[in-house]
């Protein structure tokens, strides 16, 4: 089962990925905030979710080459990509959400 934050990350990731090739933590935080007009997601929630999704195979990650970061004068970024499994999970969850078969009421 995907949590809302995980669904949102997959959604934002799949939006950024075709354009940029990959995405990093803060870019995701910014995209999520811009989408729903909310505050930037907390560090703990974002990176815990990314870590968990990476471990579950929904995302894959790699650190960018240090030379690139050095050339830009910034710390290295950890670059994420949505995997095939992640995309499939997102599509399945989005379909279910559209059908409205799963709601919080089911858990209450």
């Amino acid at each position, binding site marked *: *089962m995907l949590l809302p934050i995980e669904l949102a990350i997959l959604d934002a990731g799949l939006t950024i990925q075709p354009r940029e090739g990959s995405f990093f933590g*803060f*870019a995701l935080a910014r995209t999520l905030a811009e989408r729903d007009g909310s505050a930037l997601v907390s560090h703990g929630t974002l*990176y815990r979710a990314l870590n968990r999704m990476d471990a579950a195979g929904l995302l894959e990650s790699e650190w960018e080459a240090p030379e690139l970061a050095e050339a830009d004068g910034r710390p290295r970024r950890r670059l994420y990509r949505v995997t095939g499994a992640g995309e*499939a999970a997102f599509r*399945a969850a989005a379909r279910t959400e559209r059908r409205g078969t799963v709601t919080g*009421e089911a858990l209450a």
Partner: protein
Amino acid sequence: MTGGDMTGADDRAVERAARSTLHWTLRYTSGLDPVVAADRQEEILSDLHEQTAWATEAGIGERATARSIRARMLRGIPADLGWRRAQLSGREGIRLSLPRVDGLLLAAVAAIGVVQVAVGAFIAARQVRALLIGDISWVPIAAALTIALGAVALVATALLWHRRMRPWGAALLAVTGLLIFAQSVEALYYLSATALLVINGVPWLEPAAYAIGTGVAILCIAASAQWANPARRFPAAPGASALTGEESR
């Protein structure tokens, strides 16, 4: 950390906020696998840099940036601690399921409700007895209030059994819980000779009753928030692992 045109106190505000966040990161990653810890530290460092650079570019004031950085750190503390626990136990995702947590929360709030009703009933019984035997010829405000709060708690506890009304029941129990324990102590001052001696001998009893009430209220408010806005989960594709963890930002 890029600061763009940052100068003086404002510059230091962002720097201090970033430093606090990094200190917190070092703290919750201490004792973890060095590679895991270094990855998290480096990722947070990158995030702080990116946020500062972005804020500078977007013309966001340094104080606002510093506030945002601190807020992101503070809001993330529960998730950071959960992540640390998971790293130490190697059991990310094998924690209490949401329905189970929900059940435990309901049991706790219902128990709180029953206790409050019992407190109200006890004070009512003591009041009736005191009136009957002529110990007292009036109803102290604290006793009347405790009995009324107990009656409200009875209604609130009944509301817990209706799923839709559950948040309201918990919210009501937060209000009654905040007051009923301290009010009952005050009521007993008039209604029980033994309680009078105890209250006179234990000056911290009333503050302790308020502290208990505050704790009860916080739990009930948390339960109310949880039930008013239940976390949603979406089924993932069959190939994806079942994930569990924190449910909000």
